[in-house]
């Protein structure tokens, strides 16, 4: 079938679950299924763990995105129409489609990067951090995957403006007190608002009866401080207006604390208007993240050695529980169905047939064009596997510099709320700088991740370029060996005072896709446009529950789990 060396056949050939792709959702489900006693085969066509959540060296990154950015049509295998040997079996051919497009890499200092290109671990799914109190952390503790990962604290977060100024996000009482940019009355307004939310949450917790200690104190005042149901259902931005918060504070709360993605003020443009109850939940997550771990200074942490450590940790967990791993597998699987239409198994490129009750697929796999399918009704059931004409995308950027955006602050987050860079900006640009102390690049160097959601890639790239020019200085273009240059955006020539100089950058677009499922076959979600893993984990857990409705997710084994997690923070 091909010239590739033949792999030894996989044995056994029958499993409860076959998982293809080692992205975070696939890895969590593989670990969860193995933990609950299922036999699991975990395959990955790549030679590394993590799929779309991997952290890669510069050469790996280049080759992964380049190979995956190619137009999907050229990938289609000629064998897809291959008829089944067994007339009782129907076959659907799958293609590996690319989630990425519009890759654009510029290198301004090839020799410097040449020397250490393998010392980088670039996150495909960046910029991404974890809230100390989010579900991902809880799940890692519960599954004991946390023992394989260590974290660094994100030292500070800032709100940026078009001029490159960075203002610390006043996210706690101490930060508000120290803040130099807010007026006295703004400090008061912001703090009062945070207290209002805190009071509401306490009152809610007290009424649920989960938080006995808190409710004992000043219960009278707390019951009065509940936010009304009406307000909770209204848009968060309207609630902030109702609380008479000035524009500046609203912007801080919406985009730097509640981490809203799209412009909340312009409801016609924005499709995702945050409701007050969700906004309050996000504030709660933020607040409870501060101080959860003694050695994390703020609400965010980042895994040492990059985001790719997270899927790997779950894979290790799965392996401990008996999951079988095979990587670098030439897959292009064909799905085999019984004549009844029930899924039976997959056929690998090698020709080996593997059978399982259930199948979980990397989001890159799509069904071939409908004409090649023998059974239209069968095909219709797996429409979710058809390459959707995905409208929403996220544009990502990765920059490498030799100095930090803020002196003495290696790991930091910068948020550009809508309209902060230019009036038409409709989505938040998120910027995450990670320094060499997180072991993702040589010491003294910094990797800066950027992202913005968009409908149109050109628009998204313009946004990122603006943010990059606000933060970084671009070396003289004549020295650069730019592979692809963007004519629309003119970069200032020569290094600017104080701004880090760009050494290397990559811009690319990624499609956003959610989970899909039918009977025994499921497709896992792509990395989303969020800063954190909450939505990804939420979707993954839902997927697991629908796949195995009667199975507990990582049932608690011993109560000392919490400690292992805290030790992991160092």
């Amino acid at each position: 079938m091909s010239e590739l060396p033949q792999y030894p056949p996989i044995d056994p050939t029958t499993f409860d679950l076959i998982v293809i792709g080692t992205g975070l959702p696939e890895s969590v489900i593989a670990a969860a299924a193995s933990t609950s006693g299922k036999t699991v085969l975990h395959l990955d066509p790549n030679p590394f763990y993590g799929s779309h959540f991997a952290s890669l060296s510069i050469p790996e990154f280049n080759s992964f995105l380049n190979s995956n950015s190619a137009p999907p049509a050229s990938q289609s295998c000629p064998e897809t129409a291959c008829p089944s040997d067994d007339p009782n079996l129907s076959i659907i051919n799958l293609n590996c489609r690319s989630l990425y497009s519009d890759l654009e890499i510029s290198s301004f200092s090839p020799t410097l990067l040449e020397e250490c290109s393998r010392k980088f671990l670039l996150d495909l799914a960046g910029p991404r951090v974890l809230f100390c109190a989010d579900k991902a952390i809880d799940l890692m503790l519960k599954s004991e995957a946390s023992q394989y990962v260590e974290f660094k604290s994100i030292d500070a977060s800032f709100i940026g403006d078009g001029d490159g100024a960075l203002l610390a996000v006043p996210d706690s009482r101490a930060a508000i007190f120290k803040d130099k940019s807010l007026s006295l009355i703004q400090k008061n307004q912001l703090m009062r608002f945070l207290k209002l939310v805190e009071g509401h949450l306490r009152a809610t917790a007290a009424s649920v009866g989960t938080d006995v200690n808190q409710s004992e104190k000043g219960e009278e005042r707390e019951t009065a401080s509940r936010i009304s149901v009406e307000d909770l259902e209204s848009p968060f931005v309207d609630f902030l207006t109702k609380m008479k918060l000035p524009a500046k504070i609203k912007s801080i709360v919406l985009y730097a604390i509640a981490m809203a993605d799209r412009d909340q003020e312009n409801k016609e443009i924005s499709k995702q208007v945050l409701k007050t109850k969700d906004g309050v939940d996000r504030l709660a997550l933020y607040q409870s993240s501060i101080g959860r771990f003694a050695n994390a200074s703020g609400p965010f942490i980042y895994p040492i050695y990059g985001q790719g450590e997270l899927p790997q940790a779950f894979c290790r967990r799965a392996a401990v529980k008996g999951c079988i791993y095979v990587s670098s597998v030439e897959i292009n699987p064909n799905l085999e169905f019984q004549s009844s239409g029930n899924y039976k198994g997959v056929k690998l490129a090698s020709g080996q047939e593997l059978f399982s009750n259930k199948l979980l697929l990397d989001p890159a796999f799509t069904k071939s064009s409908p004409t090649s399918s023998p059974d239209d009704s069968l095909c219709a059931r797996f429409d979710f596997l058809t390459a959707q004409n995905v409208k929403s995308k996220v544009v990502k950027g990765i920059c490498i510099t030799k100095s930090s955006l803020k002196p003495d602050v290696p790991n930091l987050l910068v948020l550009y709320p809508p309209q902060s860079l230019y009036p038409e900006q409709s989505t938040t640009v998120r910027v995450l700088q990670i320094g060499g102390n997180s072991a993702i690049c040589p010491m003294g160097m910094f990797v800066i991740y950027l992202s913005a959601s968009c409908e149109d890639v050109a628009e998204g790239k313009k946004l990122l370029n603006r943010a990059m020019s606000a933060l970084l200085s671009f070396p003289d273009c004549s020295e650069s060996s730019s592979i692809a240059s963007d004519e629309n955006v003119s970069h200032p020539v020569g290094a600017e005072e104080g701004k880090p100089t760009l050494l290397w950058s990559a811009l690319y677009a990624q499609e956003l896709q959610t989970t899909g499922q039918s009977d025994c076959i499921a497709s896992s979600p792509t990395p989303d446009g969020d800063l954190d893993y909450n939505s990804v984990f939420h979707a993954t857990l839902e997927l697991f529950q629908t796949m195995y409705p009667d199975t507990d997710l990582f049932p608690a084994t011993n109560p000392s789990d919490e400690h292992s997690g805290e030790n992991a923070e160092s």
Partner: protein
Amino acid sequence: MHGRPRKPLKPVDEAAVAAKAEKLRALQSEFLSNHQNKIYSKEAVELSAKLLEINPELYTAWNYRKLAVQQNLAQCESDPESVNSILDEELKVVENALRQNFKSYGAWHHRKWVLEKGHSSMDKELGLLDKFQAMDARNFHAWNYRRFVAALMKRSDEDELEHTQNMIDKNLSNYSAWHNRSNFLSRNCSVLLSNLMKKAAPGFTSKDEVLTREYELVREALFTDEDDQSGWFYHLWLLDQTVRSEFPLLVSSWPVEGSDISLPAADYLDGCASMNVFHYSSRNFPLVLYFNQSVRGVNSSTVSVSCGFNLNIDLIWKPLSSTDSQSAKVWATHLAIPDAELHSSEAYQVEVKVGFSQGIVSTTGVAYSHPSQISFQLHLQKTPLESGQDSRFGRIQWKDDCFAVYEPGSAEPDLVNLLDNLTIKNEVESTASTWQARIIDDETNIFRDLLDCKIGKLTVARLLTAYNSLRPLDKPVHCKEVLELYSELMKLDPSHYQYYKDNHSLVLLQQVTSSKESLLSRCFHYRDSTLSTNGSPLCLRLNNLAISQLGSFEKLLWVQMLDLSNNELQSIEGLEALQLLSQLCLSNNKFRSFTALESLRYLKSLKVLDISQNEIGSHSIDTTRYLFRSPLSHSVGSCDWNINYLSSETYWEAFFVLKDMGLTQLDVAGNAITSKSFNVFLEKLLPTLKWLDGVEVN
């Protein structure tokens, strides 16, 4: 350490505790026998260390260690190395004990003791403190010790100030850090002040710069979290630092500058019943000096009194204070005019010079350096005898229909003049207060943004009050606003009602006494059928004002007859300044005991007193008594504590306050204490009494 709920012991723990106690008892008895037998062997000392690690509260063990160290040191004086190792061992024991109980007084004290022997280094001690303060940032033991170390090692105030700043940055709710800050600053302020007086060294930050910076800091804290009280106290302290005048100044006096005083001529001296303003029935009349703060050193050498006649004797100035026999805000003396010296036709100029020679010093040690002079005239006046001979002993009735509104102009032009000059004009004060006024003005404008919460209201009220206090000569501004703010606070925060009420009262009195017009509107002639209009006394009526505290005494030194009935007073502290007072009505207030009326002891001219309808005696435990040394040690003077004539010891408070008073009329009805035996007691105590509860005394 703060806000952490205490967990009840688990049953498993109880068994462990019992075992621990058993072990401890054994150790303890062994230790005590060592101690008694003065055994300071290595093993014995180690035993005490073991004991202290378990129970750092054992003071005896700490003392034992001190004895052991002393003995061991004496044995190896020549060898610095072994001295070091002995003291190091002590520091180690303390550290272990503190790990067991961070709040052990004995352990901290022992450490200080070791340090005082010149051991350990600042870095080491501060490092240790940083560790402890990271665990509990507000712990006052650690802060106390920090101050001790910083003082001992002469760490610079700037460094320590920065440390407090860092602690506040971490958590602004840190009372200890704010307090420590005020400690350094008050020391700095006095340094700054002395520098200012030496024509400030150039480049040295001036007091207003320091205060401005501190206001900015605490403002950030108050605006950030208006509910956190740690900053409130600091703001209050700053405000006090801002308004408090460092220089002692004379605020007001009696007689008032430029006034005319009429004295009865010798012939009429005894028969005269006139109680008109500025007419004295006695030729022994008081001089009163009212300062802006407590001072000492007022005597005949620092205050010179010269008049057209010979006084013969040195005047004796007495401080009007019950707590301090050396210093007071108000000083008084009595000028006795010798009969032979005065001629009825002449007016005599009297000059009182204060502070022309050194000696008057504030309690903080700042010398009185602004000499002032008060001149007034004395007249002799022949007043015709009243027709009603006994009118002097006629009963005063504090009824509304006995009072007629005072009509100024005709009879006593003096009063009007006098009320214009109640306050002494101090030039120094008005120029020095410009920067304070600016600071307070700015601060007020900023805090007006916070008027929708409790601390905002309170702070604005305090600031406006402080602003007025800086300008004693000008009419107070914003009184109405301040009164409204306090009224709102009383409703908003009922648990601190009394505090707001007291402040409200002070401002109200300030408002009432602020102008001639408002004072005159509260002046009444007392008219009684037994008295002619000519002799009718003038009464200041501050009744029915719902005040709970008295103030503005400096404006009331001239008052002879005062009606404070129907208020909510619990104390008359400060009233002793009113040396001319001869009739006083305190009925229908909330006095709970005679000790609350202690100021009466200083009112030697008081003849008529009404304390009826109060709560005297209804509270078996007199809370004010705690401010008071025990009755036996108290300066009851040449106490003729004669049990024989006291019907009961239970009246000792009344005895203490009322004895030596020349009261002719007393009303005590309507108090819990009143009884037949009490009346008998009073009649014995006050032989001059003519009327008791409206009944003529035989």
